[in-house]
Every structure is written in C-alpha cells, then in structure tokens.
C-alpha cells in the first residue's frame, strides 16, 4: 500500500465533487467530509515537506519530460496550507450559508475548484498548469454566478471571458516554449532555457495572460463586480485564493523557470503595475459604497503589494536578505488569503442580517453581530498591515529591503497603500459604533461566525507571531 499524498490532494476533492454531484441530497455532509479529508491530506503532506523536504510524484511512472507529475516544495506547500485551511473554513461556513437548492450547485463546483487549486499549487508541467487554470477559471466563474442575479451572471461571464483570454495567451507562450525546447516540465526547462527572443516572448505572453487572471492593475476591471456580486463564501474563495493562484504561478515561473531570462526592468514593470494597483485599488475601496465592493477593491490593492515584491527581489542579492524577502512575499499572500476570506465571510453575515451591504447603513447590523464585526476588524488589521498581523511582518521586511537597496519609492507606495487601507477599513468599522441596542451575545451563529472569526484571527495574530515555520518550510525548496 502506498499513499501518494500529492495525488490525493487533488483526487479527494475531485472524488468528493463526483460523489456530491451524484447524490445532491447529501451534498452538505459529503461535501464537508471531502473538505475535511482534503484539508487533512494537505496538512499531512505539508508536514512531511516541512520535516523531510520537497516531494515529487510522477504519475504513470514515466517521469519528466514525457510524463506529468506533481511536486510539493516549500512555496507550494505554504500556499497549499493556506488555501486548504481557508477552503475548509469557507466550507464550514457555506454549510449553513446556502439554501438547500443553492447547496446542490455549490458543493460540486466548490470541490472542483478546490481540486484545481491543489492541482495548481502542486503542478510542475506548463501544459498541466493550463488545464488546472481552466478548471479553476470555469469553476470560479460558475460559482460566482451562483446567486443568479443578472449582475452576477454578467460579471462572471466577463470574468470567464477575460480568464479565457488569459489562458489562451498563456497557452501561446507555452506553445512557444515547447517549440523551442521541446519540454513542458518546469524543472527541466529551467535547466536549458536561455535569454533570447523566444524565452522573452514566451515570458511576456505567459505573464500578461496571468496578469489578467491575477487582476493586476489595470487589468483588474473584471474583479470588483465579479467578487462583489458572488455569494459570500464564493467571494471569499475567489478573492482569497483564486487570484492568489495566478500570482503564485507568476512567482513560481519567475523563480523557477525564467530566472536566467529576466532582469530588473521587467521587475520594474511588474512593480509599477503593483504600485498602480495599490494606489488605485485602495482609493477605489475607500470610495466604494458597498461593503463587498470595498473588499473586492481591497483585493486589487493587496495583489499590488505582491507584485511590488518583484523589483525588490531582483534588486536584492541572493542570500539571507533575499530569502527573507521571498518569505515575506509568501507570508503576505498567505495573510491576505486568510484575512480577505475572513472579511468576506463576515461581510456576508452582515449583509444577510441587514439585507444589503451599503456601508453607510450598516450600523445596526454591525452592532447586532459583534463576532462578525470583530472578524471584519481583525481581518482589517491584517489588510492594513498593522501588527501583529503577518502583513505587518511582511511589509516590514519589504520596506527594510527597499531601504537597504535604496528603492525608497516603493516604500512610499507601500505606506500610502497602508494609510489608505486604514482609511477604508475604519470607514467600515466606524459604523459599528453607534447607539443601537446592546447585543445579547457575542456569537450568534457559531457555524458561520466562528469560521470567519478564526480566519481573521489567524491573519491578524497567528501568522505574524508564529511565522518562523514558514521560513523552515521555504528552506525546503525555494530559498537558496
């Protein structure tokens, strides 16, 4: 008997989706069971990587370059842990969030999305990545439209089309690489790739395709309506995980594949776009009238921070400092995952209670749901980057490296974004303080409020204070 956890991390949710599709009346129970099983698998896998180093599994026994396999190293496992924990919380939340009919549609699509995510984080093959991207994009768009409103369907159709455009462009890049090097495995390609027009063009195509999916400014236009109109648990997953997956791919390709090809200028292009995202997204979030729209724009902004890391990464010479920086980027991504998911889940509760999510009229609902408001607050702490959240630590490291390298303008952008974030988060929280009647209890509905609270708590406290394991983890693979 041999347990291939890598395969199981993808197979479990897939099987779960199959089973749930076949027996829709038991969707919740079976769905939750697969969620737990998948999360456990991922955690055990991560633990293994954390302890023993990266793992690879070649399906069919062919091995690269002919066959495909999955590989778990520190970076992928970090994202895996984050997304699985978030997904588990979302699952628990969704278990009581959806009505019986919506549940039948939610669970299979949700588990498919999950398996796409796991597959994406573990993939090593460029074409396989294309397929997982499509699986992810389709399931995400379908989930996003689940509320069935016209706005949601329109927004998600747009998302679907943009995603397809991105995929096609990415695929063109892959085709170019294959035509030149005759390989699709990232690891093998990295050994032979050399600077030149082919690699450059491929990189430009693949990255610009992924930018679309990562909603990088100014290609973010599809994100706010799509994320704001989706049901809360779906918004959480979309904002926290799906766009993050595209970023992960950019980072992964940057580090593992295109490292010999790239240079500071291209990093600066990424950084500039990131800076634009930070400023524009934060400002738009500040002016947003609806809570979920605010959260969606906040996602745009937060994605920007991740891209600002690239010029810093390029500028920093290899060594401890660069490792720190890399870990900071991953930490930032993880923290945002937890925080944004927690935020959306809590926002969903507030929206449900209030019947709308217009920020200026939320006072009563926010007051009636202390736990949800608290979750928004805690998630807000992480979104702003206040201590002791992981974002704070990450920003600290980023700013420090920027200062050391003399790239102070990125610091200005980061701080500006931070202040704007504070403004938009507290704009929401400000409405939680008014003279509504005292709530009877802190927690009203444990099954929805506790997941939100936990996610927010992890983002605001755990990741910042107990980040050390992440470094250990990243030592297994990505860090020099």
């Amino acid at each position, binding site marked *: 008997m041999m347990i291939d956890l890598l395969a199981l991390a993808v197979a479990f949710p897939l099987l779960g989706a199959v089973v749930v599709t076949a027996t829709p009346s038991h969707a919740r129970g079976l769905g939750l069971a697969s969620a737990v099983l998948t999360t456990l698998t991922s955690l055990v896998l991560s633990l293994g990587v954390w302890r023993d180093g990266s793992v690879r599994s070649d399906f069919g026994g062919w091995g690269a370059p002919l066959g495909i396999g999955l590989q778990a190293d520190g970076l992928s496992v970090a994202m895996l842990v984050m997304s699985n924990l978030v997904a588990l919380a979302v699952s628990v939340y969704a278990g009581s969030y959806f009505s019986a009919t919506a549940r039948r549609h939610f669970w299979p699509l949700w588990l498919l999305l999950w398996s796409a995510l796991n597959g994406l984080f573990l993939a090593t093959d460029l074409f396989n990545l294309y397929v997982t991207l499509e699986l992810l994009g389709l399931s995400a768009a379908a989930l996003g439209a689940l509320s069935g409103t016209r706005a949601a369907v329109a927004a998600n159709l747009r998302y679907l089309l943009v995603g397809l455009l991105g995929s096609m462009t990415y695929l063109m890049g892959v085709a170019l690489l294959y035509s030149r090097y005759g390989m699709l495995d990232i690891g093998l390609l990295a050994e032979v790739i050399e600077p030149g027009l082919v690699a450059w063009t491929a990189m430009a195509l693949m990255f610009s395709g992924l930018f679309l999916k990562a909603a990088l400014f100014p290609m973010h236009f599809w994100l706010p309506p799509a994320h704001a109109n989706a049901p809360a648990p779906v918004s959480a997953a979309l904002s926290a995980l799906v766009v993050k997956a595209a970023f992960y791919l950019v980072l992964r390709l940057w580090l593992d594949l295109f490292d010999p090809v790239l240079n500071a200028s291209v990093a600066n292009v990424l950084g500039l776009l990131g800076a634009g995202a930070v400023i524009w997204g934060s400002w738009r979030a500040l002016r947003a009238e609806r809570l979920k729209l605010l959260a969606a724009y906040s996602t745009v902004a937060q994605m920007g921070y991740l891209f600002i890391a690239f010029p810093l990464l390029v500028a920093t010479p290899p060594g*401890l400092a660069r*490792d*720190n920086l890399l*870990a*900071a980027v991953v930490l930032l991504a993880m923290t945002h995952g937890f925080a944004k998911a927690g935020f959306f889940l809590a926002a969903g509760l507030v929206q449900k209670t209030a019947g709308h999510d217009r920020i200026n009229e939320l006072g009563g609902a926010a007051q009636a749901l*202390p736990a949800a408001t*608290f979750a928004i607050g805690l998630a807000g*702490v992480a979104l702003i980057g*206040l*201590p*002791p959240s992981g974002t*704070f*630590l990450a920003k*600290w*490291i980023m*700013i*420090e*490296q920027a*200062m*050391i390298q003399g790239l102070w303008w990125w*610091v200005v952008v980061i*701080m500006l974004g*931070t*202040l704007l974030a*504070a*403004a938009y988060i*507290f704009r929401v*929280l*400000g409405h939680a*303080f*008014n*003279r*509504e*009647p*005292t*709530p*009877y*209890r*802190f*927690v009203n509905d444990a099954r929805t409020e506790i997941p939100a609270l936990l996610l927010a708590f992890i983002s605001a406290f755990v990741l*910042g*204070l107990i*980040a*050390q394991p992440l*470094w250990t983890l990243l030592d297994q693979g990505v860090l020099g």
Partner: protein
Amino acid sequence: MNFDAFLPAAIVLSSMIPGALIFFLKEESHRLRTVLNMTGALVKLVLVIWMIWGVYDGHSYETRLTLAPGIDLVLSADALSVLFVALSTLLWLVTTIYAIGYLEDSPNRSRFFGFFSLCVSATVGIALSGTLLTFVVFYEILTLATYPLVAHRGTPDAARGAKIYLAYTMGGGALLLVGAIWLQALVGPVEFTQGGILGNAPEEIRGTLVIIFFVLLGGLGVKAALVPLHGWLPQAMVAPAPVSALLHAVAVVKAGAFGIVRVVYDVYGVQFAHSNGLLFALGIIASITIIYGSLMALTQDSLKKRLAYSTVSQVSYIALGASIFGPIATIGGVVHLVHQGLMKITLFFCAGNYAEALGVHKVSEMDGVGKRMPGTSLAFTLGALGMIGIPPVAGFVSKWYLGLGAAEAGANWVLAVLVASSLLNAAYFLPILYKTWFRPTPTQWPAEHPHPGRLEIGGALLWPPLITAALALAAGLFAAAPFTPLEWASLIAEREYGR
C-alpha cells in the same frame, strides 16, 4: 520554563487574556466581568512588583520571540520600562474601578472593557519593548485598541473624534514605521540599549540618522501631541471620562513621550543626539508645544478640552526633559512621566465626576462645586496645583528637576519656558479652583443625578481620584523616599549616563 524569560510576557498577557475573554461575555454578566477585570489588574500588579524588585537587584528579564530571521519581538525590563509599566499597572487598576462605576448601566460594556484591557496590554507592551520593532508593534496595537474606546459613545461627535484620532495616529504610526525600518536598514536590528547604539555610527550616515530622527519624532510626536501634531487630542475628548483619563495620563500620550525618551536615550544615545543638535531641536519643539498648549487651554470653556490642551502642554515636559543634556533634566523628564500621569488622571476623573453627578461640563458652570462635591474638588485642586508646579505636589518635583537640569546644562531659556508655562497653567487652573471653592453654589445644576448614599457620588467614582490625588501628593511630599518615581527616575538617569 524559565520564569525570568516569561515574566515580561506574563505582564502583557495578564491584561490581554482577560480582555480577550471579556469580549465573549454576555452583556449582563457584570460580576464575572468585574472579576476578570480586577483579577487581571491585580495579577499584573503583583507581577510588576516582582519585576520592580528584580530590576532593582539588577536582574534582567527578557522574552524573545523570533518572528523571522533577524526580526525578533523582544519584551525586556530595564529601569525605564519598569517605571512606565508600574505607572500603567497602577493607574489601570484605579481606572478600572472608576470605569466600572462610571459605566454602570450603559450599553456595550463587554466591548468597552475588552478594548480597555487590550489598551493597557498594549501600553505595557510599549513599556517593555526591548527593540524598536517591538515598540512599533505595540504602538500600533495601542492605536487599534484605543480607537473603539474613543468611538465608544457612538454619537456623531464620537465618530468624528475617533476618525480624526485615527487619521492622526495612523499617519504617525506610518512615519514611525518608516523611520524604524529605515534605521534598521542602516544599522541592523535596533535593540534599546542604555547609552544608545549609534554612538559610533560612521560619519557618512550621520546625516541620514538625523533625518531618521525627525521621521521617528514625527511618528512619536503625534501620540505625544507635539505641536503641530496635537490636533487629535482635543477632538478625542468625546470619549467617556475613564478613556480620556487613560488616554491622557497613561496610554496614548505617554506612549509617545516614552517613545521619545527611548529614542533619544536608548537608540540614538544622548551623547550622539546632543552632539548632532537633535536635542536642541527637540527642546525647541517641546517648548513651543508647552507654551502653545497652555495658551490654547486658556481659551477653552469646556473643562475636558481645557484639560486636553493642558495635556498637550504638560506631556512635552517629558520631551523637554529628554532634550536637555544632563542627568538631572533626564530625571525631571522621566519622573514627569509618572507625575503628570497621576495628576492628569486625577483631573480627568474629577471632570468625569462633575459631569456624571451634576452635568457640569464647562468651566463656567463650576461655580461652587466645591461645596457640593468636596471630595472630588479636593482631588481636583491637588491635581491642578500639581500641574502648576506648586510644592509639595508632585508636579513641583518634575519642574524643579527640569529647571535644575536646564540650569546645569546652561540652557537658561528653558527656565523661561518653565516660568511662562507655570504662569499660564496658573492662569487656566486657578480660576477653576476659585470657582470651585469661592463662588456661591447655583440653585440648579445643569443635570444633577443625586446619589443616594452618604457620599457625594458613588464610591467607585470618588475613591479613584482621591487615591490618585493622594499618590500625586505623596510622590511630591516623599519624593526622596526609596522606590518613589523620583528615586526610580534617578536610577534610570544614573544608568543612562552611567559611564
């Protein structure tokens, strides 16, 4: 586990854990909430006393949590931190009692006390911070924990005040963060070290270090309410009285002032700061703040606003003390940290009592309150006299040391500042005292809530100001006794200059 390595963390946690638990309490569980509050406060007090003994004996306590390679969260205890910790702990205890009395029958108390405890945890964390990073962490947490307290009332005014408070402190926090990281980028992890760590910084980065100093000062100055960064303070007066008391006496402004002291002494080193002209600049800013705050206080009719501007003015004494080169002035500045805390918290408690019992919010309404509320007014009088610097109340001791330090450093202009400030203090406090004691009682108070008992107001509201006033008096009257703030400040100065 080694207890020495756990003690600082335990002190922080002793209020944080009750605070976190309180959030989950039902609104009606008064008793449990009170028990939690008081247990936390008392446990903290015991731990702090333990720590005081230890630090006095030269023990070192350090909790170190590595966040990332090269980035450590360090809680450690030296003489300066213990001073601030002791102040916060003591005043927290008193303020908790006061707040329990003050907020009787008002809504959202679980939320209030939860944040209240977090606020103190953050303050204690600031006090015990062993590195600049740790300081920044708790500094920001403090902002977070106080915002809900300022906004607590939920009125449009409160919301506005809280917004302004937030805008200022977040901006300050950002500056501080940038400054701290910049410094760290230049010289590596910044651990607070007696005598500073920049003493032998290479010549070529000195200019940058000076710029960083002002960036840090900008960040700290917001909380310390240095002019022109003080704008939030009068606006934050919308908060309930215990919050104002805490904000002004212990937590927020003190955090800023404490930070300035830390940066001057334990980061830059007073020698470095002196020789690069930083102290002089700080002194000028502090002096302007002192005079400006007093002038503005003169123009206020609202009692709490007058007290707020008074805080603007008084807290800068601490910065002023830090800005004068020499151990005596250092003592003056550091000891004012405690003295101002004791006196100002008394004043705010009293202002709260007047508002609570009589509906008196304005100076012009205070005619004859002394006869109606003698206990409160006595405490108020002591606090006010201390602020002016009349012996034997504690404020005099601070002023004396500041003056003496200035004289020894040859900075006679500081004496002029002290004199002007004292005169202005007298000008805005003495009329209040006059009204309190010598004016006839009006026939009707603005909004009187008669208290059923024998006392003028509930015991939980009366005793805290009396206790703090007595402490302020004792701190001046027995200034030279062992373990007084003054003696402790001398110990700090001795260790800072002790080379």
